[in-house]
Each structure stands twice: as C-alpha cells, then as structure tokens.
C-alpha cells in the first residue's frame, strides 16, 4: 500500500548542486547523520542550508561546511563550529543569523500557507534591517516572512512504513516543522516499524508529509 522506503542510490540521485536543503537537529541532536553521509559522498556543491545551527566541524551538518559543499547557511547559531566562522570571515560562506524563535516560526509559516507573522523579537536591533515594521496598539513588531526548501532531511526515532514519525525526547526540535516546509521530505528512520505499531496520539509528523523513508539498518 505504502512504498516509501528508498535506497542510498535513489537518494543520491535526488541531490543536485545549488539546492536549498533544510536539515533537522539541534547541535547534532536529532540530526540525520546517515543522510548527511550521502550528501557528503555525492559531493554536491554550492548548497544553501537552513538549520538551527551548524553543529560541529566533524559532526552533524557541520561536516558539509568542513568539506566546503555549502555556500550559504540560514541559522540561529554558529558558535559550536569554529569552521563556520572561519569560512564566513574569509568570505567563502554567507551566514544569515536569524533569532531561533523567528527561524522556526518562519519554517512553520512556510509549511502552513501563511504569508508572514508579526514578532516583537529583534525590534531595535540589527535584525530589523530591511524589514517592514508594523505598530499595533503602540507595540512594534517585525513582519517576518515564510521560508521553504526544495528538500528536507530529517531524523525520526521511530518511523512506521506509512511514514508516521515519532521523535524521542529532544530529537524533535526543528524536525516536524521542516517536514511541512519542503517539496521533498526524507526521514532517516532510527527504528523502522510496521503500520499499527505507533500509538496514533504519539505521531508527531503525519505520514502524508513524508515523501521517502531511509532506514540505514535495512541497507
């Protein structure tokens, strides 16, 4: 009935130079490391990466920066990966820093058919540069815009064969939001289970949002 399991080779074929990719995770917790392996192996270049942070130079999506496959990151934090800062100062990597709450809400917006939202975060700081400011009842807000990607690579602790996803503990972070905001969504299943094994209340990403399932243990 559902036929979403995909191989390493099929994923590799989906990857192109110049792509915009969202990658789930928070400082490499809840990050699809085995999917990142495939991006590394394929060696695609000039990527734009949307993520919470750039993790470490040898862990998480930081590995893509170390190998210079990325030309632009849109993130809230780069402090854990000195390589990001180095490439930025050398002029090789464009870094857009976005407040974390604004970044995740922009992703939600991009996946929810909303045209933007008003947030008080960033008012009176350099974050407001180039943005429309709207005052309501005397309070200033920035109009922040939705963001989407061609591809989202996410992590799932438990995934059923229909594509329903459960994220354990703090692996949830950006993953369920990104699953709504990309044209193609691939989940790396830490554990793949049969349909019916997940309590329906526990599902955090409904199956129709998942395009493909990658189950490294089954390879």
């Amino acid at each position: 009935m559902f036929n979403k399991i995909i191989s390493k080779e099929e994923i590799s074929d989906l990857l192109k130079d110049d792509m915009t990719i969202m990658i789930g995770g928070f400082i490499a917790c809840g990050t699809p490391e085995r999917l990142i392996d495939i991006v590394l192996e394929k060696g695609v270049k000039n990527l734009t990466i949307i993520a919470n942070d750039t993790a470490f130079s040898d862990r998480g999506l930081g590995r893509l920066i170390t190998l210079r496959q990325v030309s632009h990151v849109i993130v809230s934090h780069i402090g854990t990966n000195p390589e990001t800062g180095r490439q930025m100062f050398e002029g090789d990597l464009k870094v857009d820093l976005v407040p974390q709450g604004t970044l995740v809400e922009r992703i939600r917006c991009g996946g929810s058919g909303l045209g933007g939202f008003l947030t008080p975060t960033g008012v009176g700081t350099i974050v407001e540069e180039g943005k429309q400011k709207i005052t309501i009842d005397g309070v200033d807000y920035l109009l922040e815009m939705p963001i989407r990607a061609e591809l989202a690579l996410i992590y799932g602790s438990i995934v059923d064969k229909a594509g329903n996803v459960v994220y354990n503990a703090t692996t949830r972070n950006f993953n369920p939001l990104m699953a709504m905001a990309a044209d193609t969504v691939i989940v790396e299943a830490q554990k793949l289970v049969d349909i019916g094994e997940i309590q329906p209340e526990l599902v955090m990403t409904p199956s129709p949002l998942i395009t493909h399932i990658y189950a490294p243990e089954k390879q």
Partner: protein
Amino acid sequence: MIEDVNLAKTIIAKRIAREFKNNQLVNLGIGLPTMVTNYIPKDINVIFQSENGIIGMGPVAELAKENREITNAGGAYVTVMPYGCYFDSATSFALIRGKHVEYTVLGALEVDQEGSLSNWIIPGKKVPGMGGAMDLVVGAKNVIVSTLHTERGRSKILKKCKLPLTAKHVVNMIVTELAVFKVTSGGLFLSEYNKDSSIEEIRANTEADFIVVEEDLKVMDID
C-alpha cells in the same frame, strides 16, 4: 434531466471517486461529498483528512461500538485506519492551508464560471457559518465542487455568485449528475458529459457560459 435525486447524487459521488490516485490526502465535506467514500476503486488507497484532527479517517463507527473520543468534523463517531494519527486544530489548518491536502470536495449554494464559491451563508435566512470551508478551498491543491446541476429548476452554476463568497477563484472542477466542468483562467470548460444527457440539455440548464472543445470532450466515467 435525472429526476431521482438519490441517483443523481450517486452519479456525482461515483465520478468524483475516480479522480483520486493512490495515497492522496483528501478532505470531504459533510453530506454529498461524504458519499464519495462508498465508490473509491478497490485498488486505490485514499487517505482521508478530517479537519477536527484526523489523518487516516475510516468509516463511521458501528452502532454500540462508538468511541466517544473519536468524531469527524460533522460530530459523527468514526473509526481510524491503522496508519492513522491525530493532531490539534492549529496543525490541522497548517496542513490544509499549506497545500498538504491534495483534494477538498465541497457542496455549493452557488458556484460560478470564475471558480468562485458560495456555500456558508444565506443572509437573514440561514447562517451556519463557514467552519473550515474558507481555509479548505484556499489551501487544498485541488478544489472539487459537488452539486446537483439545478435546484428547483434553477442552475447552480452561475455567471457570477450572488450570495456572500466562501472564496474567489479557487474551484478547479465542478461535478454534477450531468457534467464535469473544469475552471481555467481561460474560462469554464465542459470536459465530460453524462451519456444519458446531451450538450444541449446541459446548456439549457446552465446559467454560466462554458466552452466545449469537441476533441477533448469525454463521457463521464461512472459505471
């Protein structure tokens, strides 16, 4: 004309049921649209969304087997498929507005040749409210209106809706017991006709202007 209303509705439901592909996510309105579930081809798995918080909605619950914590958007007790899941209303409408629902099928008080739809209010008479309809027609990838071709002899498919709109320029397809129309930026096209009817009968019962391209015209698939 098909005088038997139940037969007419069955024709509409059967035709719409042929529209879906495997594993597509579909939201059906209350009433006629819900009848579509009875005619889905056996080799096609359609995933039903209910805007009160279900993906993978199954049939209505059997009597005395109802779970009072599982209802559909009309308040009826329903079942859920093994691949199903639940979510809150904000997530539900994020899915709906965010173009994650492939098809929404709704009834109409009026629909017009520009793809505008009125189905939520008759001012001063009947004011049920729009519920989730305004979000569904704006957000779903494809909007199908299911309606009897006429009501008390009057065409339901107008040049321009007169009642307050549910949304402007959103309908992709109109299915009646006599015909299937496609709404495009170039106008309303008759794409299929009921073999028991005729283009002349359809024209006589349709207020809207519509275009017929003979070589593209098909017989409605309802057998």
